[in-house]
């Protein structure tokens, strides 16, 4: 039974890591993949989402709706930023990098001045439901009564039993849904077709009557909204501060860069699956810090072998086969 516990724990951690990376990176992947802009203010858009979620939930709104509101709020903020500032920096990769970094600094400091250093933390949904694995229990999902009953004898869980929170699995489900949603949005909708045409060849798309400026603004809005949703989801499990986003930004960048810009969805999935694996293994064997270092080393190796990211490499392969 012990080996089963270990495997389950490892698998759980892997899903958790993958969900984390997908959520942190998905908005950035859209904006980088579709528009070629590296948005250093990504973490701050997540932070805006977290604050919207927090204020909505203080007002008594249930968490799923609060997270949707977070997406809407961050999406609007992103579109405003795009119209005011970022649209002047298309095709200037390094300048867009620097200017969005400046924006991130302003936004986080403004939130610090307005709302103070911390917010009241939010309750994690489903926190009373636990998955128990190992020992005499085997495998079961218990509510608060069952959990209390198990602990009643000794005050803690019986020998060999590990408990896992279910919200992590919810996060994974949401991440998978978002990925599927983005894929469908790009594949089947009018907007998706126009957006792909614009990214492929803006001048030609424009000549065919597509309003490319609107497509850019919308795409930036979609990316920002995804960042906001992710921020809302993370807000339910961690402390909310004005510098909340900084913790996610570095990892999100690595994931996106490894995924590459050629195919947003498949690049993101491949990159997250591999980097998440490396991170889980190294964190388990050594420490969280080594896990992060291992992830960066893996990213560097992948970039050495595939300079355009995993999706660029796959596209090259496909082209060569034709």
């Amino acid at each position, binding site marked *: 039974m012990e080996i089963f516990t270990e495997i389950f724990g490892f698998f759980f951690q892997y899903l958790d890591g993958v969900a984390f990376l997908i959520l942190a990176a998905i908005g950035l992947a859209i904006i980088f993949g579709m528009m070629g802009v590296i948005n250093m203010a990504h973490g701050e858009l997540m932070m805006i989402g977290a604050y919207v979620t927090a204020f909505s939930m203080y007002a008594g709104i249930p968490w799923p709706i609060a997270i949707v509101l977070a997406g809407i709020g961050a999406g609007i903020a992103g579109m405003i930023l795009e119209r005011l*500032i970022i649209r002047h920096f298309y095709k200037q990769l390094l300048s867009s990098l620097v200017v969005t970094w400046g924006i991130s*600094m302003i936004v986080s*400091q403004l939130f610090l*001045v307005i709302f103070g250093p911390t917010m009241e933390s939010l309750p994690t949904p489903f926190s009373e439901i636990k998955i128990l694995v190992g020992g005499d229990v085997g495998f079961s999902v218990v509510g608060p009564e069952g959990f209390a009953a198990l602990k009643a004898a000794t005050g803690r869980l019986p020998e060999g039993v590990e408990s896992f929170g279910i919200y992590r699995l919810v996060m994974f489900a949401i991440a998978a849904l978002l990925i599927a949603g983005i894929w469908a949005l790009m594949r089947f909708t009018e907007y998706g077709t126009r957006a792909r045409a614009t990214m492929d060849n803006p001048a030609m798309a424009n000549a065919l009557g597509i309003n490319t400026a609107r497509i850019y603004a919308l795409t930036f809005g979609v990316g920002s909204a995804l960042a906001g949703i992710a921020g809302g989801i993370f807000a339910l499990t961690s402390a909310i501060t004005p510098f909340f986003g900084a913790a996610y930004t570095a990892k999100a960048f690595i994931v996106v*860069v490894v995924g590459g810009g050629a195919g947003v969805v498949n690049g993101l999935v491949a990159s997250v699956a591999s980097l998440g694996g490396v991170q889980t293994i190294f964190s388990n064997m050594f420490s969280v810090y080594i896990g992060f270092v291992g992830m*960066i080393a893996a990213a560097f190796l992948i970039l050495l072998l595939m*300079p355009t990211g995993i999706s660029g490499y796959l596209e090259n392969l496909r082209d060569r086969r034709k």
Partner: protein
Amino acid sequence: MKRSGIFGILGLLNGPQTMGRGWVFWIGFVVFVVLAYLGPTHLGLKPYKINEFLISGFLAASLSILWGYCGILSLGQVAFFGIGGYVWGVIGINLWDSTGNTHLAFLGGILAPTAFAAIVGAAMFLARLKGVYIAILMLVLSLLLETFMLQTADPEVYSIGKAVLGGSNGLRPASDIPNAAFGWGESVVDFNGRRAEFYYFALTLLILTYLGLRMLLNSSFGYLLVAVREDPDRTETFGYDVRLIQLAVFCIAAAIAGLAGSLDTARINRVDPEVFGVSANIMVVIWVAVGGRKDLTAAILGAISLEWLFLWLTTSGNPEYATIVMGAILVGVMLIAPEGIFVFIGERLRVLFGKSGLFSVERKDSVI
């Protein structure tokens, strides 16, 4: 055009890659330098405040030659600054008692970041990593160093000789990090970082670095840097190895940043993991972007004036607004004068003074 001998070498100071040429500029330069030397005694500048600005000048120069001239943006330039600072401190602590000077500390503080840059740069440039990836990777590297230094609190594991890395408290023991000191035996000159003597020392070094870099940038190597920035493929077609040029300028920039870090540790007799942090990194980028990345003079002036403004903002009234103002200045300048404030002013002055005068900016015509 080319002259040989001593005039040829001095002529490099005046070349087209750096803003400002002709006698009007050089008279202005001399006046500025004289005023700078008179600052602490006659103009009421407080050395304990302005010494820091000079160090910013080195960092700005380092990012300017890398990003402005060669087109390689590094968002983690303070990684080299921090390494220089730590190595200077470690060597200084260990050798101060026996030698009484800090020659080797300075040597190490410059060479260690250069060697680090050579390794990292070789991996990045030989792999022909794209510019954005290099920018992000350097930032991540700097943050990794910060995280690593933060967890070095255990003195049993993390100490080098007498120096204890000390985690978030920074290098210990703080009282034993020496000042910058030069000389042998009895005749050692010691520069207290809070006093005017350090100001004269750092100012002289900054002016020498500035003039040296002007000569480098106006030499054929400087032309190559700009060629790599403007069109790496064409430079490659001319038979130059772009990767080696990038690696070389990366190492030079790291050496200057390392010198800045060494000076900073000597100035305040301390160094902690915060030197590697995000805010330190973003500040360097702001100085250079706002001052004018494509010109050495503009970048240094940008650093010094923005540091001055930042100090004024943090000490007068509302310090929490200081970073907002800095960010707003960055975004505003990027929108209105993307080449930077001092390059903008320089080009206006050139129009004012005409061809023969103050600021000739003919870089674009002379390239390739």
